[in-house]
């Protein structure tokens, strides 16, 4: 019996230690989290979740939030995660009513899915106040059935980056037509350089090539037409694009085993910086990444161009694949008014927006000061664009988007023909729309 009591005591002690740790965990959390923000009028606390994990951009948001807290007397707790964990955590939280007040979104089909479930606040009226300061197309990507569900804080496009030092060295001109591109790639290959860097394990970098090809061949609105059902996903544009993509692989324009290389850990960027590859098709996020990873390269080698036009195609070289990052307010929020104010602040405040520009990212405001050449080139492309197509994997519904990425990866791996890929897309589209 004595032993039993001893064990019981042990267990109790254990429990107490556990709960003490649990409590101090939460308590310490509150203390360590916010720097210097103690408010008189009961601070309601806001939860902000975003994905800007890169040091420089993360800091921009932190500073912006500090300013916001001081101005409005509201504490904001920030959670930063990158893509996959962010999506998993957000989804779990949404389902159980634990959603953050303000959260990052990519607009398009992804946001719409949440909006359809009534999980996002409609800010159509509120945004009237500040929408003129922002890029209109970007707002459009958060608008469904005329209602606005998010306010953009960053915009992005997909330039074709190239290493100007390599081009100079080999006497190459930036290609503006596909024929010119073929000449450039031949020269590069003769000199032992792989034309395009590509890391496609996450599937979207490779898919972007397919999208650009399709847009150049069939016209900038080709995907919108497919989505609305005006044309089929088996339209000859997509078949031709798929064939061209496979030919690029056959001609050795991409690294071997690109489907296994990881963009996030820098597998393709390594090769681009080292001069093993001369070009890379990527989002404008790369500008900022390059600046922080390899400043020397950023200053001396990085230049922006646009995916060349294809002879006989309906698309222009100035049609852009673009996207945006927005903040939305969760319908579960206890403080919707403040949340909307935070969203407004992040979209429009000079601190945040200029901060992004300094970090090499393109903000949502249309009137920013830019000091570096690559970033300027990016912004110019954006403002001169003749058409802005939202990133396809954000525009399509999640299931269709996955199929799109999967088929493109298969095309790059030569495990599917373009007819097969197109057929799968159309089949899935028909079964869910």
């Amino acid at each position, binding site marked *: 019996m004595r032993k039993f009591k001893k064990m019981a005591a042990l267990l109790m002690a254990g429990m107490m230690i556990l709960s003490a740790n649990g409590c101090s965990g939460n308590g310490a959390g509150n203390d360590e989290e916010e720097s210097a923000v103690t408010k008189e009028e009961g601070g309601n606390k806001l939860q902000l979740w975003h994905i800007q994990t890169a040091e420089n951009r993360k800091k921009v948001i932190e500073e912006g939030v500090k300013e916001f807290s001081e101005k409005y007397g509201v504490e904001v707790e920030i959670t930063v995660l990158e893509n996959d964990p962010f999506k998993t955590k957000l989804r779990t939280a949404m*389902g159980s009513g634990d959603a953050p007040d303000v959260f990052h979104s990519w607009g398009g089909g992804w946001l719409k899915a*949440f909006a359809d479930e009534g999980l996002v606040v409609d800010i159509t009226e509120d945004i009237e106040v500040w929408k003129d300061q922002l890029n209109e197309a970007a707002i459009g990507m958060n608008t469904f059935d005329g209602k606005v569900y998010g306010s953009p804080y960053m915009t992005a496009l997909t330039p074709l980056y190239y290493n100007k030092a390599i081009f100079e060295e080999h006497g190459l001109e930036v290609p503006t037509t596909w024929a010119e591109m073929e000449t450039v790639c031949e020269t590069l290959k003769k000199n032992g350089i792989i034309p395009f860097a590509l890391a496609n394990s996450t599937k979207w970098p490779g898919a972007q090539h397919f999208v650009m090809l399709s847009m150049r061949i069939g016209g900038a609105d080709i995907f919108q037409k497919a989505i609305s059902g005006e044309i089929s996903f088996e339209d000859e544009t997509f078949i031709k694009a798929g064939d061209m993509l496979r030919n690029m692989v056959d001609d050795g324009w991409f*690294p*071997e085993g690109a489907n*296994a290389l990881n963009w996030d850990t820098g597998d393709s960027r390594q090769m681009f910086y080292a001069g093993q590859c001369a070009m890379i098709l990527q989002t404008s996020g790369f500008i900022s990444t390059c600046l922080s990873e390899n400043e020397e390269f950023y200053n001396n080698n990085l230049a922006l161009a646009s995916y060349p036009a294809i002879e006989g195609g309906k698309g222009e070289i100035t049609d852009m694949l673009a996207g945006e990052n927005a903040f939305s307010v969760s319908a579960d929020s206890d403080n919707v008014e403040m949340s909307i104010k935070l969203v407004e602040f992040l979209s429009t405040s000079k601190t945040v927006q200029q901060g992004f520009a300094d970090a090499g990212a393109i903000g949502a405001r249309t009137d920013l000061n830019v000091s570096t050449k690559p970033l300027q080139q990016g912004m110019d492309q954006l403002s001169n664009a003749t058409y802005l197509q939202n990133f396809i994997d954000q525009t399509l519904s999640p299931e269709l988007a*996955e199929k799109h990425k999967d088929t493109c*990866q*298969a095309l790059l791996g030569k495990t599917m023909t373009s007819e097969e890929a197109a057929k799968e897309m159309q089949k899935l589209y028909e079964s869910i729309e």
Partner: protein
Amino acid sequence: MIRSKRKWSNRGTVLLFLLPALVIYGLYNVYGIIMTFYFSTLDWPGMGPYQKAAGVGLTNYFKLFSDKEFWHAASNNLLLVIVSVVVQLGLGMILALIINSKIKGIKLLRTIYFMPMLLSTVATGILWQLMLHPYNGLINNVLRALGIHNPPAWLGTESTVMFALLFVVCWQYTPQYMILLRAGMTGIPEEVYEAATIDGASKWQQFWSMTLPLLSGTLKTSAVLSIVGSLKYFDLFWIMTGGGPNGYSELMATYMYKKAFNQEQMGYASSVAGSMFLISMVVVFIFMRVTRRRDEGKGGRLNENC
């Protein structure tokens, strides 16, 4: 049968011993798996309350039955099971013998052999992915230095990806079995070996006719661990290839994850999980039957009369 003079409530005793386990298990495991099966009967994307989702009975399972990608994943799991059991246990045994022998620097050896287990899966995944980079990775650099001109893109080519992944998985998990088997070995008293040596048995004979049989319990446990772990396996495959290229290295668990969190089909994903569960049960029970020993155990049980 010795009868004790003291009587105690047998049921109470049993309850006392079992209760904590049952409570925790019931709360988390049982509830968890029941909900999984429940979700699998819904057409639910995973967002918003599941109470509102439409019930579709066994439709998800029918869909699963004819799902080629799923069965391809299952076949990968089968491969993983076989390789894991053979390599991790076999190699683990060899290593256990090494660290159980009288060899210099044994303390260091034990620590180094154990290191792969200490690395988190994320770490292992990233590290090996870097080393397997087709152009700049350490492995291919070494191969090129050795004169091999076109080393393969390990994780990017269908013919090599499973090999590469299995290699890394074995690298990470063999130490675990090394430890398990060694723990089993230390349970065998020295005298047993001494007697055998006196009788003239060679080290080989001692190993085959004494060590192995005496370790059969540990081996069986290790095998079950390995089999179940391989059927459920997720981590390294997800981190290193995400199931690619194009689903070639898919496992049932990565397939389930994709469906649940990337493709907004939590209901369907739950049916994948439910199937994994059922498959595991079948496999393990077959295994247990084949290596039936439970009731031969020497440990007698107390019953009400004692």
